[in-house]
């Protein structure tokens, strides 16, 4: 470790302002701070600072999505061999390996493209590289259908980092969840590659789907009137869908990590689930078609609902920031997601749009909560003037 530290310390003067390799400053700084907690001590204000920092926080979020990612990899293999009709003859590891090899390039593209842009912006702005993209970079692959071409992943990542985040000033200033901006960009720019029944299953070499395999997501099936959902499969994650969104079980493990460590807002998670259940029950009561009649709890385990509620809606920057605001924000996401999903056949998955919409309204919700605080404070101590 000493050698590594010496290397960083020795090269530091060469990347300072005015030195020859100044253009590598943000890169040097990013890797140095990643490898070593720096020796800087408090100059003003409190003398002690908590051990928690942005790297720890974002690192824990990445850790929490890993189960869903691994499960997603397995599911890709499962769907593939399912479509081939070879489920019975293929082992667990073959399926997992198939998925791993499919997903890894997507992750690499996302990180390389996104981090390059981040480093460049940090260099120009004279900031440190923000850790936010460590999370965004893993979330982007997880919300992509497996058949998304790599160049599209790259373009979407670039779009989301530049227009979803950096033009607002970087991590902490963005209005929308950057990972969802990437997804939405593809959804509207390349609709053919982003929806339909053929994008969800990696089916290279599959001539004809085996019996029982349509490749359609449960939502697409639902809109078409086929509502026989295998709830256990949907919960464990053996259904067609985006790479990381299918396994509710794995997502719940992630939720547990986020809640126990206090990194993710349990209020938003709970409020979203409550909102979704509320809307689901409402639709059950007034059901006029088979999709509306799907038991409300099944709506929560299919599609991207769980993934969105746990990992997307809880992004602290784009979510509501006040305690009361979080309840309202989460609840409305749940309501809107199910509403869009069931009643608007043009958009078979409502979660992405619901979260982006509520991201947009989060500052408004907060505004009214803050106004409430101001009024309450005025009442308590009259500002006589």
């Amino acid at each position: 470790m000493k050698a590594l530290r010496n290397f960083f310390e020795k090269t530091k003067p060469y990347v300072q302002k005015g030195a020859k390799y100044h253009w590598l400053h943000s890169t040097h700084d990013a890797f140095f701070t990643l490898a070593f907690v720096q020796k800087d001590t408090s100059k003003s204000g409190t003398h002690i600072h908590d051990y928690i920092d942005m790297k720890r926080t974002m690192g824990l979020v990445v850790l929490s999505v890993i189960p869903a990612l691994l499960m997603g990899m397995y599911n890709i293999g499962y769907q593939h061999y399912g479509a081939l009709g070879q489920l019975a003859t293929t082992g667990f590891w073959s399926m997992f390996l198939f998925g791993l090899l499919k997903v890894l390039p997507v992750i690499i593209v996302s990180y390389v493209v996104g981090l390059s842009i981040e480093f460049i912006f940090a260099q120009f702005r004279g900031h440190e590289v923000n850790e936010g993209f460590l999370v965004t970079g893993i979330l982007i692959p997880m919300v992509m259908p497996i058949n998304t071409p790599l160049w599209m992943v790259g373009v979407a990542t670039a779009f989301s980092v530049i227009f979803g985040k950096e033009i607002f000033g970087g991590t902490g200033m963005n209005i929308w969840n950057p990972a969802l901006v990437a997804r939405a960009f593809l959804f509207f720019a390349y609709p053919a590659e982003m929806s339909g029944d053929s994008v969800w299953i990696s089916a290279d070499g599959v001539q004809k789907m085996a019996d029982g395999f349509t490749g359609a997501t449960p939502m697409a099936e639902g809109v078409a009137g086929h509502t026989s959902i295998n709830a256990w499969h949907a919960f464990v994650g053996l259904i067609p869908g985006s790479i990381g969104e299918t396994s509710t079980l794995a997502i719940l493990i992630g939720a547990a990590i986020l809640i126990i460590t206090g990194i993710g807002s349990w209020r938003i998670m709970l409020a979203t689930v409550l909102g979704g259940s509320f809307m689901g029950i409402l639709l059950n009561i007034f059901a006029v078609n088979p999709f509306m009649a799907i038991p409300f709890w099944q709506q929560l385990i299919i599609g991207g609902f769980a993934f969105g509620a746990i990992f997307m809606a809880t992004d602290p920057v784009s979510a509501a920031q006040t305690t009361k605001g979080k309840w309202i924000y989460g609840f409305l996401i749940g309501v809107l997601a199910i509403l869009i999903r069931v009643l608007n056949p043009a958009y078979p998955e409502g979660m992405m749009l619901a979260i982006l919409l509520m991201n947009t309204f989060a500052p408004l919700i907060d505004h009214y909560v803050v106004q409430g605080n101001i009024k309450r404070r005025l009442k308590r101590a009259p500002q006589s003037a």
Partner: protein
Amino acid sequence: MSKHFKLKRGFNIRLKGAAEAVLEDAPAPKTVALKPTDFPGLTPKLSVKADTQIKAGEALFFDKYNPEILFTSPTSGTVSAVNRGERRKILEIVVEPDGKKEFVEFTKADPSKLSRDEIREQLLSSGLWPFIKQRPYGIIAKPNVVPKHIVISAFDSAPLAPDYEFLFSKEKSALQTGINALAKLTDGQVYVGLSPEQSSGVFASLKNIETNTFEGPHPAGNVGIQISKVCPIGKQDTIWTINPQAIIYIGRLFETGKLDLSKIIALAGSEVKAPKYYKTIHGTQLDSLLKGRTKTETHERVISGNVLTGAKVDADNYLGYFDQQITVIPEGDDYEFMGWAAPGVDKFSASKAFFAKLFPKKEYVLDANLNGGERAFVISGQYEKFLPMDVLPVYLLKAILVNNIDKMEQLGIYEVIEEDLALCEYACTSKIKVQDILREGINSMIKELG
């Protein structure tokens, strides 16, 4: 009507090295000094030159914009130096004691028989006035104002803070005399905030006051928190606050007619060999006290005050004007490989992101390392957990950053000073300099509204 307030929000930082309840005499200091930098916003004007002979209670300097506010010498002796910093800013006015114990004579009288003006005059001329702080803003009280109430916190909940019952248990008469003097300065009440353990202590037995009890973690002992519960500050309200130590000085002044600034301080922190209490004097030089009493195993950081709000001082510097403790912690100026990713069994944290959470009783050695780089506000809902007031700290800080006076006022800048938000700064994931930002906001409020 005594009320009991149970505060849920807040946090006790479990530091190693609390002072043991043992009192020793500190070695007599070679010099003592007053530091104008202990008063935010003060412009000092010297009233003495170097090498002047002075008595205890004679003015060393005064406030340029309120010349009646004097700062007087704690001891008789010679003004040995006026230390200046950048742009000739006065840092310290140093007095070398001559051991003669000569005092300026002030009026010796029972304050309850004196008028408000007489008491005010005596406090101003003796140099005890600067101990009175006003809210809003936490600056020296304006002598021409009559405050709505005077609020006193009778306990300090900050990390490793001294136990006030231990410090002041023998000073009951001086405390009572001081309270009687202060009570004359307001038309309202003198409120004293007690911790639940103090129900039978020296403060609970005082008269001429109204007591309330505050139960909960730090910052329950901060007077700002207590004000927000007892008598919230509105626009154009003024509340005065004063530390019990200063009340004792006032009591002694009226009882003896002399300025007696001897006090007890706690020497605490993980780098102190045997943390305990020492009897010393206001503004004492620290070197003789620290010498041989710290471990000197690592780089040390000496703090006049506590780890949240104190000032970093060199070992030959002086005790701060309001400080009752010296804290010595490791500087922590070293790299740690992948420190952010470690499981963190030994990493005490206000968050739940480290395994240290599993040991809720253990005490920890914490150093002055920043443990991360400064970022924008990312995490929400974090600061609120450490401020038991109906104030939204992040929104207030953002209003300050864009210098929006109206919003600052609406969001509660009158109610908080640095110490109230210090825990937020400690716990902040983004390492934002909360206290610096808040003082900036207070300064622009003073500039805009006077």
